[in-house]
């Protein structure tokens, strides 16, 4: 691994800085022995294998791993879209209760998500107005006058550099991938959840839009004080933006710690391999590890 040893021991000057007290803040979401098994009988697949985690308020945590390592399954369990086979998840210090529809709805006010593929994230039969109005209604704004609803939608759109007047009465598929992903962020802006789960939100859009999306997510964190769980396979990106990094392999967390700890002094062989696999422009790149 000598060839792929990190060159510097701290992040680039322009990178977002980790707030000093972030790891001493109260826990927002934590889990103990969280496990997911798919299938029954002899055809069982262990997707997530007894993972423990603790995410603090306002923290930006990256969960890094290759395809099929169980990142998205874990994300769906955290979101309450998949049931947990074993283990316990705590939300804001209390064990999470999502057994009833009402409890689930309440939970989802606190946790929201941005998905990987913006093109399949929206119902193609619903207009953009419907998507945004749903968010206003969910946060208790059902009885607001229409002018106020419009103002909120305009505000959300302008936060993500979109013009509501141009979007109204349009369908999501009439937008570009980057615009759709920004619309997703506008949705989050309206809902203002405690936790945002971003499941590879930039993997399907171009580098330019990626920077914009990341910038908006960081801005959201600063403004709302939201915890962001950033799921990615791009360890370079994770290092650049995260406060903490969890490395996932075959459904287990093989390593976790602050971004500097994990990336600059990796202990697990898998972490080292992930770092070695990052393409390099000015250095020889050992393809045999890929």
């Amino acid at each position, binding site marked *: 691994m000598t060839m792929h040893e990190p060159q510097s021991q701290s992040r680039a000057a322009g990178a977002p800085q980790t707030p000093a007290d972030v790891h001493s803040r109260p826990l927002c979401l934590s889990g103990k022995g969280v496990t997911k098994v798919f299938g029954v009988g002899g055809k069982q697949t262990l997707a997530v294998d007894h993972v423990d985690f603790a995410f603090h308020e306002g923290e930006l945590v990256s969960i890094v791993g290759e395809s099929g390592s169980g990142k998205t399954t874990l994300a*769906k369990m955290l*979101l309450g879209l998949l049931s947990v086979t074993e283990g316990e998840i705590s939300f804001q210090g209390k064990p999470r209760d999502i057994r009833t529809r009402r409890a689930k709805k309440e939970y989802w006010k606190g946790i929201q998500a941005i*998905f*990987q593929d913006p093109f399949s994230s929206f*119902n*193609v*039969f619903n207009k953009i107005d419907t998507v945004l109005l749903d968010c206003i209604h969910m946060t208790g704004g059902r009885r607001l006058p229409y002018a106020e609803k419009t103002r909120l939608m305009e505000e959300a759109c302008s936060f993500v550099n979109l013009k509501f007047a141009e979007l109204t009465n349009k369908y999501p598929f009439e937008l570009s991938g980057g615009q759709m992903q920004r619309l997703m962020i506008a949705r989050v802006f309206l809902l203002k959840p405690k936790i945002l789960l971003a499941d590879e939100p930039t993997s399907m859009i171009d580098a330019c839009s990626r920077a914009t999306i990341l910038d908006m997510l960081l801005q959201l964190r600063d403004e709302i004080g939201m915890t962001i769980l950033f799921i990615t396979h791009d360890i370079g990106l994770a290092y650049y933006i995260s406060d903490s990094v969890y490395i996932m392999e075959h459904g287990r967390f093989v390593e976790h710690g602050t971004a500097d700890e994990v990336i600059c002094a990796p202990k697990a062989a898998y972490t080292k391999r992930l770092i070695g696999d990052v393409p390099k422009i000015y250095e020889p790149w050992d393809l045999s590890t890929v």
Partner: protein
Amino acid sequence: MKNTIRQVFHSPKFVVGFCIFMAILLTLFIYPLLNPGNPLQMIGLGTFARPGTYVSVYDGVTSPFSTFKLPQADANRLDSLLTTEDRVNMVNWFSLNGVDVAGLDITDTQAMIALWKQHFDPAIRPQGMTKAMRNYYIRLNTSILGASSADALVVSETDEATGEASEKSKITKTDYVNVADVANVVTLPLGTDNFGRDTLKQLVAACGVSILIGLIAGAVATALGLLLGLLAGYLGGLVDDIIMFFTNIFTVIPSFVLLILINYSISQDQRGAGTVALVIGLTSWVWTTRSVRSQVLSLRGRDHVNLSRLSGHSLPRIILTDILPYIASYVVMAFILQVSSGILAEAQLSLLGLGPKTTEVPTLGLMMNWAMLYSAHLNGSWWAYFPVILVIALISFSLNLMNTGLDQVFNPTLRD
């Protein structure tokens, strides 16, 4: 939506199927307006009157005559006197009695009749000929002699009081009446059926009833299949297990056997067209359920459904707005196929005598059943069953064509 409809109408297969089906529907609405009346009314006393225009002989005789001397009149009269069967029988008689028929053309009426007059003798009894056949030849001989000899026919009237017949008028071979002057003329393009009912009028009415049965059966089957498929696919777990348990049971039992048994257990008086349609619908939902379920299974994990759940939408709303629109094209196609198979199922059932009761409305299946019971296929009355088969095939063809067209639009891998 508008775009989808435009796309659908750009598919040639769909357009052809749609046009055929619309033409059938249009006929169903327009024909009864032009030719009103009860389609099951018995207008003829005999069975299976051939297709054609029927002129009242009584009204013809009492209509004003015009005189024409057409050059081919005698030849035509003789031609129409002898059917192909008669001609073949005449040749048979000749060969049985040793008359040389080499070079005789059976379409040459003059030569046939000349030979017949020369050789036929009612006293001759050929070896092995039945009495019925001999009588037939004698009748044939009489009509040939009559047609070629008499110049005029007398119409006589019987005095009711005295019982004496008096000559009323004389009809010569040169007398003609204008069809427009005859008070009663009836055109039966498809003749009459075994009960003397106008086959075409009946066919139009039957076609409407059959399509209605297909629509009801299709709607019931699609609605039931859709509902169960959506619930099983989206809810999963125990609900899925229970629904699939019943679905699998119904899949294993052939639905046609079930259909026969259910219809057999309902008495003939209670079996209206609506009941039959309902029974067909209730036995054919299985495949819709299975395919809707599998589509919903793949849809429920999609991001837009997850996003809808995260937005706190209720189960009915997610099913109605996030899942149903995505499978709507499939459901429409399934419905079209169900309508088509509903019409065929009714025809099959009625053919077996388990269709709707026979006294209320005609259906395509019942018409086939009647034709079969009265041996229309044996006595050559093609008009009683062939147009029915053609209409069933045409409806089925048009619906399937529409379905294939839709499939090509919604499934890009099938496009030409």
